[in-house]
């Protein structure tokens, strides 16, 4: 046996094995279990199947955004416009269906296309105009939100056709539609990121852009696809949210990028790219969901929830950096 491995403790071994095989961080799983245990003790309603579905339903929107964040951050990029693009997508979809009278499927498709268009613009500006991703997506955060308010004239768009509402409120076999769509998206994303060329190249670019370039990977093209994909997923999240609340709300998704990026980071995505898994991100998203659900059950004001999420993000990155420093010192 390699002496280097023999020396390190059991936790370090388990950690290394989980990071390298399952690509998840063990700490996040422990945090999820402990958090669930605490919530179960504090609230008698927590441990029930209906509350479990509630958590998944509340997590579905954030979960889809967190998948987008995992791809982009894993590639060494950043998408701060997720929440705003989600809001824009919902307004566009509702507007197409209600104001233009288009059939429901067109309205649903419009959400995803609007998101993809915003993401496509992000990708073009980042790779061709060479503006840093941080600035481009921060600008898009303002642009998309403003456009959503312009299109909706600052009002919530009501009166969606029933088929669209079904996507948000239908319950085939008792399982909410958003949960089904969210889990299906997660399974596909997991396969793509973990087991396809596209996914492996995404992480390779985030790991070392020079290595990826030398290996013949078309880095700029891949980045453009990634930002477009991120926008499309934000559009999907916007579609789910719009259908669930049965209206196009221009303020939907406000600050959601904070929660989504936090979920991806505590799920083990390296803030600087090169490492990430959808499985880990799902655990991260569930931590966010359980935290919000539990605080709701305990009737904690939502203002405190925002504070909790912000603190968790900083704490997660701190732990990550601390471990990296410790490893490099050994």
């Amino acid at each position, binding site marked *: 046996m*390699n002496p280097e*491995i023999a020396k390190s403790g059991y936790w370090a071994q388990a950690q290394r094995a989980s990071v390298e095989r399952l690509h998840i961080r063990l700490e996040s799983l422990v945090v999820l279990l402990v958090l669930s245990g605490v919530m179960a003790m504090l609230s008698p309603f927590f441990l029930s199947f209906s509350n479990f579905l509630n958590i998944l339903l509340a997590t579905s929107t954030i979960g889809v955004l967190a998948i987008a964040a995992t791809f982009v951050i894993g590639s060494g990029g950043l998408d701060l416009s997720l929440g705003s693009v989600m809001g824009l997508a919902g307004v566009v979809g509702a507007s197409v269906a209600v104001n233009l009278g288009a059939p429901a499927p067109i309205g649903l498709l419009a959400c995803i296309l609007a998101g993809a268009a915003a993401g496509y613009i992000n990708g073009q500006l980042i790779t061709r105009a060479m503006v840093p991703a941080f600035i481009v997506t921060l600008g898009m955060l303002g642009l998309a939100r403003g456009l959503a308010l312009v299109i909706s004239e600052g009002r919530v768009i009501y009166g969606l056709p029933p088929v669209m509402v079904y996507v948000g409120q239908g319950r085939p076999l008792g399982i909410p539609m958003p949960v089904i769509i969210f889990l299906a998206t997660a399974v596909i994303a997991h396969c793509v990121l973990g087991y396809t*060329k596209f996914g492996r190249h995404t992480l*390779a670019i985030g790991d070392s852009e*020079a290595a990826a370039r*030398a290996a013949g990977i078309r880095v700029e093209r891949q980045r453009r696809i990634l930002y477009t994909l991120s926008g499309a997923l934000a559009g999907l999240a916007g579609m789910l949210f719009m259908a669930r609340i049965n209206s196009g709300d221009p303020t939907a998704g406000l600050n959601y990028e904070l929660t989504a990026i936090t979920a991806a980071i505590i799920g083990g995505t390296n803030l600087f790219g090169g*490492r990430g898994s959808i499985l880990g991100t799902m655990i991260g998203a569930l931590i966010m969901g359980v935290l919000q659900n539990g605080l709701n059950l305990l009737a904690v004001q939502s203002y405190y929830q925002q504070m909790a999420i912000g603190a968790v993000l900083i704490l997660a990155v701190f732990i990550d950096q601390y471990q990296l420093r410790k490893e490099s010192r050994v």
Partner: protein
Amino acid sequence: MTLLALSGIRKGFGAVAVLHGVDFVVEAGEVVGLVGDNGAGKSTLMKIITGIYRADSGTIAFGAQDIAPLDPGARRQLGIEMIYQDLSLARQQDVSSNIFLGREPTRKLFGLFPGFIDKAEMDRRAAVMIERLGAHLPSINRSVGSFSGGQQQTVAIARALTFNPKLVIMDEPTAALAVREVQSVLELIRRLKREGIAVILISHRLNDVLSVTDRIVVLRHGRADANLVTAKTNMNEVVSRIVGGGDASAAAAHEQGG
């Protein structure tokens, strides 16, 4: 048979001209040393061969094919491999992911969905390649960043040799290695030559260059200043061609001593 032929290569970055019309030829199965002072344009020239940079003017042919319009991926397909000084490894990925980066074998999942990476096949072939190089790695499933410098070098070399290259470019492969490891890299270069693979060796260690190459090209101020047959030259001549007269004898004496 001429494998690689560059002619009249010019390249500048903004106002700074780095290469002023370089002619450079590599025969099939030949080991060519490329030497020159810092800033002579060695790395730029190599990146033009691999396709990372585009030349401003000049022609570049590989075999009978004009490869100027091809991107780095296409040139690797033709058999041009480069081992970079910084190794260009994706440090958070494992051994086989690095070796096969950009060229992963794929299969259909459940015989239906195409494009899935055949990780088992990658690991198997990676293990065979590492074995062939006679190297020892702690585990091929660990991220490359956790390896020592020599072990990382092994992965970079394995990556270059896995796809039956015709030309391997090595940029300072021995600069960061321990003495024993240097010998194994030099032995590897000799083995590549026996297998008919051409090698371009960029190195500041002139003893290494003189011991394994057939020919030495000296790059000076962005021009191929000298083309020396290794068997008919010596340290003094190489050094004086690199520094261009002046303090040549003192520099040569220093190199000989070291």
